[in-house]
């Protein structure tokens, strides 16, 4: 296959007609295109679910992992080769249910990865069970009885876990969405975008209609999410938390919080391993003609604290 700069593949997109995922796919593709990233510099990592199929539809490296584990896979990829742009595209069940622990861990690390949450309030691919973003008492058409468990707020969770870029977008506003994705990808640090994604097949509560009436853009109301100096952090975070609680008649989308001052994990690694970005793990030579670059003689020096010389001290 020739290299394709439109980020599209030949794989048939097998989502339900009308699914919000189409918008997310277009949003990613548009962002990559506008950022002018080479397909081989980008890795799209996903979990399992309808959302999990996304990488197969994008002409860039794609790693479709396990349910809930996209973030740790992405973490390994990014740590091994920090020059790659790593984007996680996952379901709400995937990232906020089975994968919630990893989501929290990424936040506190502030590793430079962008997380896109396909927030459809259901487990799509397993036929519409409640996902962790479906509020208690709500009964979608796929549920036999109203939901027993309450919802998690992805924005609140991201804010409290330490993400330095937290946003919400709407799957069907592709331009707005792709714009946010662009900024998130360019941001150096952990970014999360909660994407409201109508599931046309199972979710008859949070529908296009429902959103259409309610969604408004933060930036249009003069919202300033950016932390320009660490001293602003607490105020901005507290404000973002309040904003994140807004859900009902009005549903805000846009960048909620953006801390440009926080050190990323890569920065911290560089403090300990000065050559880290210059020679990251994936780019080191380890052998020459089958001989190790670090052989036992070199080990005796690197591990000199493990060497005891006979007759000496």
């Amino acid at each position, binding site marked *: *296959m*020739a*290299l394709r700069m439109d980020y599209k*593949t030949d*794989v048939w997109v097998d989502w339900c007609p009308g699914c919000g995922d189409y918008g997310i796919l277009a949003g990613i593709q548009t962002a990559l295109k506008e950022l002018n990233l080479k*397909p*081989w510099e980008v890795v799209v*990592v996903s979990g*399992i679910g309808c959302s999990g*199929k996304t*990488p*197969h539809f994008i*002409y860039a*490296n*794609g*790693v*479709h*992992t*396990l349910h809930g*584990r996209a973030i*740790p*896979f992405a*973490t*390994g*990829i990014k*740590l*091994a*080769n920090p*020059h*790659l742009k790593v984007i996680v595209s996952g379901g709400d069940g995937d990232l906020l249910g089975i994968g919630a*622990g990893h989501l*929290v*861990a990424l936040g506190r690390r502030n590793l430079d990865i962008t997380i896109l949450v396909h927030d459809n309030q259901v487990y799509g691919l397993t036929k519409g069970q409640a996902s962790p973003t479906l509020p208690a008492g709500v009964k979608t058409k796929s549920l036999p009885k109203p939901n027993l468990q309450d919802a998690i707020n992805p924005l609140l969770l991201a804010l409290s876990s330490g993400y330095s870029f937290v946003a919400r977008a709407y799957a069907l506003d592709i331009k707005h969405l792709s714009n946010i994705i662009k900024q998130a990808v360019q941001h150096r640090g952990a970014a999360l975008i909660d994407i409201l994604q109508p599931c046309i097949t199972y979710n008859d509560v949070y529908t296009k209609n429902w959103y259409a009436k309610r969604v408004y853009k933060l930036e249009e109301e003069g919202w300033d999410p950016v932390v320009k100096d660490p001293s602003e952090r607490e105020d901005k975070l507290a404000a973002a938390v309040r904003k994140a609680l807004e859900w009902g008649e009005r549903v805000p989308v846009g960048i909620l919080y953006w801390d440009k001052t926080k050190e990323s994990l890569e920065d911290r690694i560089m403090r300990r391993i000065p*050559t880290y970005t210059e*020679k990251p*793990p*994936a780019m080191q*030579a*380890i*052998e020459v003609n*089958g*001989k*190790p670059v*670090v*052989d*036992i003689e*070199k*080990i*005796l*020096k*690197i*591990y000199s604290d*493990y*060497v*005891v*010389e*006979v*007759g*000496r*001290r």
Partner: protein
Amino acid sequence: MANRRNEVTALLGGPQGAGLETAAQVLSTAFAITGRYVYSYREYYSNIKGRHTYIYVRISSERLPQTAREYPDIIAAIDAESIFHHFTEAREGTIIIYDTSTVNTKINGIVSIEPETRNRISSLLESSGYEKTVKGALQYAEERGAKLIGLDYKLLLKEFAQKTGKSTYRARRYLNTIPMAATGYLLGLTPGELEKGFRRRFRGREQIVADNVKLAEIVAGYMREMGFKPSPLPEPTNPPDKFLVVSGNDIVAIAKTIAGLRLQTYYPITPAADESVTLEAHENLRVDGEDLGSVLVFQTEDEIAAISAAIGAALTGVRSSTTTSGPGFDLMIEALGWAGINEVPVVVTYYQRGGPSTGLPTRGGQEDLFNALFSGHGLFPKIVLASGDHVEAYEDTIRAFNWAEEYQLPVIHLLDKFLANSIVTLPPNLLPPAKISRGLISTGGRGYNRFDKSGGPITPRAFIGSEETVIWYTGDEHNTEGHITEDPENRIIMHDYRMRKLELADEQIPEEERYRLYGNGKDFLLVGWGSVKGAALEALKHLDEEGLHGAYLHVRVMQPLPKKAISKILSDYGVDRAILVEASVRPLLGRLIPMWTGFQFERFILKWTGRPIYPLELAGAVSHIIRDGSRSEVLRYGA
């Protein structure tokens, strides 16, 4: 004291957190500096401070001991509890060094001893007619031939405090030096030699060195006064010029660095975590000002993340691995299947400990063989190999990375707590030169298909990040491009070809590299794996001396199992002479072999106390089986 064959074993015992490890290290180092070989092994509770711990330090003038040995020649106790745990280990000639101020301590007064242990020891003392005190225990030992050396530790510390101007409180911190110094004295270490040991342990902290040396001198003086004569080990014949002093964990860390590991993920767990700590402490690979790269060690939020990140990293071409023990491995199983279907070379270093569940988390065992071999839903190929000592651990670590890349599959490297926590003085020349083989590698490019099977089961592997190369991976069944497909005919090929890689490994890796047969006596055959090795080899020698001539079949690669050779050897010996030896409550290798060969073992020697199999108890059990017709033996040595 019986200096058996140029060697001696000292047991140091005391409460966790009281510096026992330091004492053993100093002693070992001091001997190493004199050119002696040392093998030391530690037992400890899952506890930070207060429970009983002990270390067997085995010293030889001749060669590196292959295992720890039971029935120590010296038992050196820091506290009363140590006496209760170990007095039954004394034999004719065993020296017991103890604190005279503890003789009246009752076993019932010791809170840190577990009730089961306390009751057991109490009953023994009672039924044998001794007081349930340190004194009673010592008498028990003495009447069985032990020689007692009582020192008043309090008094010694007092003198030490006076001489160094310390408070008694501060002086107490040096308590651990007393029994160690006494041991050193008895074994003929000169103060100068001991000082070298201290100096190396407390690099740069000269005051501590001086204090310790002072206390050691006080102890030595006291012992001399009391009339105890040192009985030095013979001078070493032909010592190496240097030793690498390494635990099982350390040697794996070193081998990984040589093998080209550049990213290691881990989540802390006993007895695996120390390997990562060792790696991290040496993360910058700078030699003589030259930068050779670095090893990034990354602590994840759990083991699922550890294996997932290691796999993710491997996709970019780095040699990556993770390290864990049973509970952590259980959590890695799902992701290993992903590595399997995606043909990802990743190495999991798996240190077995006592299970099931949390089990005996600081003790050892060999019960995880089937977990390593057979866990995971759906079939996928993996290579499983197991090491029996430090040199094997070194070789196997390097083989693991090579095979992982050559066959593009996960490799599980099995070790255990016994090996992880054994520290040896290794002459570097025992480590064979390493070769790195990265298997089929592609630079990718336009039109590259990661799972193109037109050339056979193994597709040249390009890395994520290669120029002009786009690669897809999925845990679903996939086509040559790495996209999902459920087509049945594609499935037939892909699924079969993955399994064929293992069959290929079976063809290509000579069986002789997957097992080793030691000895050629025909009276019996021991069959074992992993840490059984040291005890088995030593038992062979003991039995030889007793006129029973046997051999030991050591299995090193469990998958693909060298089944032809094993089958042949087993049929040579037959069911009455082939004895399966395993640190397991029910045989596992003993079930794996019939699975592939049909050979059903009928003779077993098993141990599952969490303590290692020791050579003499093993020899005894073999003799029971071969001479007395016993069918199976349960070993139980060790406090």
